[in-house]
């Protein structure tokens, strides 16, 4: 009798432990880009070799694969036609990082079939190295290549000036560098809730001839992002945006809606009890704040740029980076054709 009870207990423990194992999950996610052109690579097969799970990267080159195990000792295999297969041990995987694939020599060079007279220019171009965050624990001297900046809720609008070589251009694409608010990979950073879907407004504005501030609205579009890709490509070819003057603004408007809410955890002391001598005994309790996605990336400025934000009185004011020691700009570029 005693023995069977012991056996029951033992089996119970085994079951309990196996259920813990089963419920834990590890997620691998990131964005795949072409090492040469730095363009996102869609339709890449990503395979967890041992577990035999396969997913495909989306239009932004973004992937998300989850392993049923909490501690994964496996290999991630990235394969796609036209690219060298890339293997990554899960032990060296870094959370939401860029994976760059090398195009094979047999692959055709990228050819864009367009009208020969059409010129395509990417204004305020930024590269992958500009928006790639340092791995945890690594500090590049003398400056970090990227300093990221989450916008505080007071900044609903951010606008950046673009100068095209001439007027009457078509805006075909906008590129945007995002950052993750989730900073659990860094020690001593506050914790936030995970967030995949984001919605914001993209505006094109004219330039006020007197103040050179953003002026009239030329175009607006709601953008829905459905992944955590850090390099966001917005294809605007179908929107047929023709800009008459050479100078224009592109603005991001944050939507302060529950959909974009991210909860950030701090802690704060609360009086637990008061001793007979009147001394307060404190304990730390949660203190939550709400942030709004998306968070943009700032990088070291190459040329002087002009940016504005709308202040709490709904007036445009010049935007300067919060990091005052050197000039930085928000990773936002515009591709035009003319």
């Amino acid at each position, binding site marked *: 009798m005693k023995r069977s009870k012991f056996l029951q207990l033992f089996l119970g423990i085994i079951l309990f432990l196996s259920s813990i194992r089963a419920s834990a999950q590890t997620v691998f996610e990131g964005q795949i880009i072409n090492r040469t052109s730095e363009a996102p690579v869609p339709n890449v097969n990503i395979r967890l070799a041992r577990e035999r799970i396969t997913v495909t990267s989306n239009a932004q080159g973004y992937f998300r694969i989850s392993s049923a195990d909490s501690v994964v000792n496996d290999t991630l295999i990235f394969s796609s036609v036209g690219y060298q297969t890339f293997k990554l041990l899960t032990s060296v995987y870094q959370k939401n990082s860029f994976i760059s694939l090398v195009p094979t020599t047999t692959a055709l060079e990228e050819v864009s079939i367009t009208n020969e007279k059409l010129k395509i220019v990417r204004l305020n171009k930024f590269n992958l190295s500009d928006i790639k965050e340092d791995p945890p624990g690594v500090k590049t001297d003398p400056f970090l290549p990227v300093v990221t900046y989450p916008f505080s809720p007071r900044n609903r609008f951010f606008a950046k000036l673009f100068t095209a070589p001439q007027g009457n251009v078509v805006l075909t694409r906008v590129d945007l560098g995002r950052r993750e608010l989730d900073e659990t990979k860094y*020690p001593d950073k506050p914790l936030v*809730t995970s967030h995949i879907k984001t919605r914001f407004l993209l505006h094109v504005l004219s330039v006020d001839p007197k103040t050179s501030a953003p002026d009239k609205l030329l175009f607006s579009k709601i953008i829905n992002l459905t992944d955590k890709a850090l390099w966001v490509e917005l294809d605007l070819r179908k929107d047929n945006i023709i800009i008459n003057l050479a100078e224009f603004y592109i603005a991001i408007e944050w939507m302060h809606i*529950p*959909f974009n809410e991210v909860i950030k955890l701090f802690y704060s002391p609360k009086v637990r009890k008061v001793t007979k001598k009147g001394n307060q005994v404190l304990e730390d309790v949660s*203190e939550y704040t*709400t942030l709004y996605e998306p968070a943009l990336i700032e990088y070291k400025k190459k040329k002087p740029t002009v940016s504005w934000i709308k202040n709490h009185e709904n007036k445009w004011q010049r935007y300067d980076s919060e990091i005052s020691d050197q000039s930085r700009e928000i990773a936002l570029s515009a591709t035009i054709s003319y």
Partner: protein
Amino acid sequence: MKTLFTFLLLVFATKIHAQDKLNLFHIVDSHTKLPIPSVSVSIIRARLAINTEKDGIFSIPGDLSAMRDTIIFAAQNYRVFKFPIRELEGQDSIQLVRVALLAPPKQSISKLDTLLNDFDSSDIEHYAGINERATSFEWLQLAQRFDSPKIGGVLKNVSIYRLVFNLNSEGQMDYAGMEYTKFRVRIYGLDSLTRGPGRDLCSKVIEAKSNGRRRIKINLTDLNIIIPDPEFFVAVEWVRDFHNMGYVRLNNADGLTTDRMINYRPAIGISPVKRNNLNIWGMNFKRAWLPYTYFSPDFTDLAIKAEVSK
């Protein structure tokens, strides 16, 4: 313990309103004269709502006869007590009248169970119970509506998902101790007029506790809760007491400053699955049920699952 509580109250009172009178009340059962634990007390115009501790003691500093506000006392299985606050002058106890609840009919025996409002819990990203833009969360209960698979079915269990910050593999920042919470679960039938939560379907107080866990599964098999209507509701009732108290930082309208406000745990998850209709109802400080529209139209349901025998 009681002396400590009185002492605390005294310290508290002398510190803040040295000149004010402290009015102490015992909230008791009208029949047994025993204290009722965790009674919900709301003062409408002052936009205040708290729960008493287990001893049912409640205090208001100041001159009651001069106060122009309405006070509501409510506890499960008791009739809601609502009247002008000045009528409390000269009293030292509040007696709540117990409501008789009919015994449920015999349970139908069936082995088929249906899981309602299913979703992938790893997709939950939003939480109710923290703040609503620049205002604090001013709701006593939030309820999830369910379509009953069969009238007369038995509610087996409910799973409620709440906000907990997961620690990373290095165990960085041990918040688990701070996230402990206790709340109550209410089961309601359908109010055919409002289409919102109606009468209580369970007379027993269901207390849920969580020690840093995200999913709280409550087994209800022993309570024999029978669903009499085509729809029913599972609600989270916040226990707004010292134990659950934390803070929330709100952005003021000027966009520059923030205010630290009191917040009560838990924050309840919002289901990542969007349905055709809004299925969340909220009970405000006046104890009126209203459709809870804060997460509309992007989200329609709370992260609460229910299992009913068919």
